[in-house]
């Protein structure tokens, strides 16, 4: 609804310029509203970042003023001290590394296992296929309520109480996702048959076709699944804290970063600034992923709409 411009008639030009004046006020109000709303959404995050740079005394000194949202300008040299102490004294990097490793393994397994299943469901015909189609649809539609405790008892009985085995308890359940099978299936169905037929003419096996033809053609969906796997594993809090043992003194901990936050929070003598620094460190990788993989995340949201 742009204003039409008439340059012939003097009166209409006047009317038009008045309209633009009104439009400018409207735009200014729009942007002001936008900024206020943005600040409403960002203030906790700004507060988190600002506090992470402060010592306990600087934090207390700034209470109740705008300084709470600003870094400690008086001590800019020691800005990253909290990060240093969280990384070394509390060893948060170990937990972060754990999270990374779990995420990478889960991504690889998830793409392989669900990708293969999606490929079979999309492209191959075999007796009994209907059972699997029905199961996929059923499991996607029905909202299953908290089966986490039965899952816990199954995993515990399967793996026993051995420390290292409990890592499998993190990785294996995260490697299967009915929804990802469904996503792969949908995507593979859109790949024309000719690609596979050409490869088959060249004597490729079914597995060979999957790895050399189908997967390279499916980069977008692989990326979407990988990104959501990463976010899922990185942000998971409850399950790891149930299944993994607490590390004893001098041992490499098995906890991923989110579950470790609880331990770090409750440590004696930890300052508000250090807590905030640990929260920032925990959030950075996800921020990076969101910025780097925006396209695939939006695609993922689009396909989330299919979940109906």
């Amino acid at each position, binding site marked *: 609804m742009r204003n039409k411009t008439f340059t012939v008639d003097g009166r209409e030009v006047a009317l038009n310029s008045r309209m633009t004046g009104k439009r400018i006020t409207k735009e200014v109000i729009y942007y002001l509203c936008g900024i206020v709303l943005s600040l409403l959404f960002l203030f906790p995050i700004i507060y988190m970042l600002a506090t992470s740079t402060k010592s306990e005394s600087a934090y207390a000194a700034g209470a109740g003023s705008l300084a709470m949202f600003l870094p400690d300008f008086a001590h800019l040299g020691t800005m990253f001290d909290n990060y240093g102490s969280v990384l070394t004294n509390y060893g948060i990097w170990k937990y972060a590394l754990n999270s990374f490793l779990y995420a990478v393994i889960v991504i690889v397994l998830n793409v392989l296992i669900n990708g293969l*299943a999606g490929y079979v469901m999309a492209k191959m015909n*075999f007796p009994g296929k209907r059972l699997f189609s029905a199961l996929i649809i059923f499991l996607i539609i029905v*909202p299953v*309520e908290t089966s986490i405790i039965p899952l816990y*008892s199954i995993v515990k009985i399967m793996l026993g109480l051995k420390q290292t085995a409990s890592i499998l308890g993190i990785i294996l359940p995260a490697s299967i996702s009915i929804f990802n099978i469904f996503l792969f299936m949908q995507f593979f169905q859109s790949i024309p048959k000719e690609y596979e037929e050409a490869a088959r003419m060249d004597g490729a096996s079914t597995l060979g076709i999957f790895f050399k033809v189908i997967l390279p053609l499916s980069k977008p969906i692989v990326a979407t699944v990988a990104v959501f796997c990463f976010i899922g594993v990185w942000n998971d809090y409850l399950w790891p804290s149930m299944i993994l043992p607490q590390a004893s003194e001098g041992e490499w901990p098995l906890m991923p970063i989110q579950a470790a936050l609880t331990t770090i929070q409750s440590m004696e003598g930890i300052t508000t600034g250090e807590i*905030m620094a640990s929260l920032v460190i925990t959030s950075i990788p996800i921020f990076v992923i969101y910025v780097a993989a925006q396209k695939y995340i939006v695609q993922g949201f689009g396909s989330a*709409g299919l979940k109906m």
Partner: protein
Amino acid sequence: MTGSTLIILAVFAAGFIGLAVWDIVRSKKKIQKYRLRSAATAYLMLLPAVLLAFLFILLPILYSLGYAFTDYYLLTPNDINFIGFDNFASVFKEIGEKGTLYHAIINTLIFVVGVVPLQIGMALGLALFTNRKVRGVKIFKVCFFAPVVISLSVTSFLWLQILSPSETGLLNSFLGLFGAEPHDWLRDPKTAMLCIIILSAWQGCGFQMLIFTSGLANIRNDLYEAAALDGANAWQKFRTVTWPGLRSTFVYIIITVFIGACRIMTQPMLMTGYQDHTVTLSYYMYTQGYSYRWVGYSSAVALIMTIVIGTITLIQRRAFREK
């Protein structure tokens, strides 16, 4: 335990073989036929997924149904007895005596009733606000979306500091400027759930905003032009074009937000602990099943909850779909 796993596995396998044989018999009558080699490859490729899905998805669901009728105590997995509807009797007794479960139900209701309209309303408002082709709108979207990126546990710990009861806490120190006494927001039963509702809506609504935005993008522009030609004002355009165009998006969002809200647990768990004034249903089930190890009782609560949520979801679908 292993016995019942084998029984479930046998039923599953029998169902599969029955269907497969039926398929083969039917295919003999038609021209289409299955090739043994390709079928074998298909089964092999499906095997890892089927194995994991059976163990970690199907089995837990079936077990939680079954456990609800047993006295399963987590530490004695070899001594599980069928006790009929005793767990359900305890559930209703607990509700009747206004025990923790009663509070969990009330708190979950408060949360759902508060957060669903708030979060969806905010998301819709923000989506409409950013649905303009002007410069800078993308930055606004990023700002509104930023909290979604933060995990639930980080959100909880962050707001724990913001709502800190000390006078140097963010909220208290600013209210202190107006002469207010420091308040313990999360321990006061009057404000605790309200705080959790607000921070949850803050954290989540950016996600639904994006879904609404893609829904808005699907509405054809000529409908708006036609409405403008008919002299419709902004509200009329919203009612006659935007709203009907968003219907399916809205149904999807209301169902997912509703189910998500019913499952709330991380925030009260990390922010207040197991307290009567903030305990929620999921948190109650988790504590009963994991911390107190009464898996049977916890599964009974889960089963009731699944039935209730499933029914409400079905009603929602019906109510919003038809018309």
